[in-house]
């Protein structure tokens, strides 16, 4: 164990951890939203994210950008960023809706048992990621360089870059907006009603199908944003990027209390930090093991996650 390393690098590890955690948190929202309403682990959510990472790259490539082109001017960068976000959000949103429509809706209509949903979710996930695998020949896809990381401020050896700030701020803002929406809007209440008792919700005049679609869509939007952040941060994507990060996002969702939006944020940030600290302390190879150990420990003390379940339960 390398304590001195951890102490020495504490600053840089913290900031990278937060940026990583912010992306995980946005990604985790999709799991939490769908789980909260349908009690379903939407395995295919990782592919919703995955397609977002590709959509953004495709959009930029349309403008002739690739990773070997020079960084465009500031206004162009802003425009491209917005374009990338829109592309990712649209494709992720459409994918989320599509998955719901093709893989879940037919099952719901047939009143299938919960496990069946889990398996179609796995099927959809496999199908999408493997198809992408074939299309991209399992190669990585590089992201054009858009933002040149520049230190915005430095504390000790902690260099906080413009990119990190962008990621963290955007994630927080999105979380806030979503939280407001779910908790204070009428539709938000409808979502919670469907979560708690679908039949009764119908008797109150809630359109279940629409609510479910909405939930998938919201999850997709958040995943789309997460995807762009991921592209900017990691610089490449690959057909299995969704699966890899998806496990972490799902862990984060559970850690915070699945079904609880704020839990996803807490879980995501915590996981991002912990992974970086653990990587420094034990070595990068133990990074994932550390997050699972943390998960088990937390669930032992709080069997429903740090903040507890909430979308389907008490007050969100």
């Amino acid at each position, binding site marked *: 164990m390398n304590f001195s390393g951890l102490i020495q690098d504490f600053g840089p590890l913290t900031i990278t951890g937060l940026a990583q955690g912010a992306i995980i948190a946005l990604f985790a929202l999709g799991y939490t939203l769908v789980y909260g309403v349908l009690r379903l682990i939407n395995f295919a959510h990782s592919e919703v994210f995955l397609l977002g990472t590709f959509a953004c790259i495709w959009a930029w490539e349309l403008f002739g950008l690739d990773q070997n082109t020079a960084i465009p001017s500031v206004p162009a960068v802003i425009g491209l960023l917005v374009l990338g976000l829109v592309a990712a959000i649209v494709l992720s949103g459409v994918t989320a809706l599509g998955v719901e429509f093709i893989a879940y809706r037919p099952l719901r209509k047939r*009143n299938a048992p919960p496990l069946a949903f889990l398996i179609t979710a796995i099927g959809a996930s496999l199908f999408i990621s493997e198809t992408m695998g074939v299309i991209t020949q399992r190669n990585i896809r590089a992201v054009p360089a858009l933002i040149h990381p520049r230190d915005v401020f430095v504390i000790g050896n902690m260099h906080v870059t413009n990119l990190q700030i962008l990621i963290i701020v955007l994630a927080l803002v999105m979380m806030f907006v979503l939280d407001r929406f779910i908790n204070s809007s009428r539709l938000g209440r409808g979502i919670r009603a469907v979560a*708690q*008792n*679908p*039949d*009764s919700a119908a008797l109150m005049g809630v359109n279940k199908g629409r609510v479910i679609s909405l939930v998938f869509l919201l999850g997709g939007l958040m995943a789309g944003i997460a995807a762009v952040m991921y592209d900017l941060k990691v610089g490449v994507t690959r057909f299995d990027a969704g699966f890899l990060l998806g496990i972490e996002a799902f862990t984060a969702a559970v850690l915070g209390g699945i079904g609880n939006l704020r839990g996803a944020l807490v879980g995501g940030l915590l996981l991002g930090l912990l992974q970086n600290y653990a990587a420094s302390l034990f070595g990068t190879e133990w990074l994932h093991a550390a997050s699972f150990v943390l998960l088990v420990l937390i669930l032992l*003390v709080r*069997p429903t996650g740090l903040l*507890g379940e909430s979308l389907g*339960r*008490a007050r969100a």
Partner: protein
Amino acid sequence: MSEPHIETPQEADAANARPVDQAAPTGKTTAVASTPVSDEERSGEVLLVVDNVTLRFGGVVALNEVSFSLRKGEIFGLIGPNGAGKTTCFNAMTGVYRPTSGGIRFQGESIVGKKKHEITRGGIARTFQNVRLFPEMTALENVMVGADAHHKTSVISALFRLPRFWREERSGRDRSLQLLRFVGIHERAGEVARNLSYGEQRRLEIARALATNPTLLCLDEPAAGFNPAEKEDLLALIRKIRDTGVTVLLIEHDMRLVMGVTDRIVVLEFGKKIAEGTPAEVRDNPAVIAAYLGVPTDAA
């Protein structure tokens, strides 16, 4: 998904009750002035003693220093307005909740803090106010789960089909079918529980509880959802159960039924005991009339 919602304690603990299995904060029961074990209790005359039990949910005091005791072989009524704490009392007795203070003794032995299945095997069985069956198991299987409470077939004897397995399987099955007949739904033995109508489900619950071979049977509003004629049958059924030697504790709002069948009654209001006595005594008690009965019973 479309089932009527069943209240589960997991949901209940969203507030601050403390279901026993999650009693992380060293849920010590502070015995408030608990009465010593009486001779009657020791002799087995008294089956169950609820001793000064208080149970709080955050601000709500669901049970407030409630004490009463059940004698062996009687039918005992527990009544009171909605939200008086009757179901909570059952939950405390069957280990679902742990009393904030006070003690509960069954056959002279404290059952506070015991595991739920231990309490059941010890001889207390119950039904639920909001039906809680095993929805995808057949009616017969539901009852057999109850019957299994006293079986000893181990994983090993089930694995190798030792004689005990055959013996218990056969007797359990026969007994379960008898019980289904006893509550009047034997024709639906092969139907999965969720497909039964509400009334049928309530009957199934009684059969399942009986299958555990209880000394004390606790029925939480068994007649809800029955029409008067059916209640009449239920009344006979409860008597029949008692006649087989089972003590019955009954929560019920139907006064005709309660008055007709119970030997003694305790009345709760706002978690406090406000009266205790024979049906006749209780019926004429002004406090009970004011709090609960309103106009002297709806005798038709």
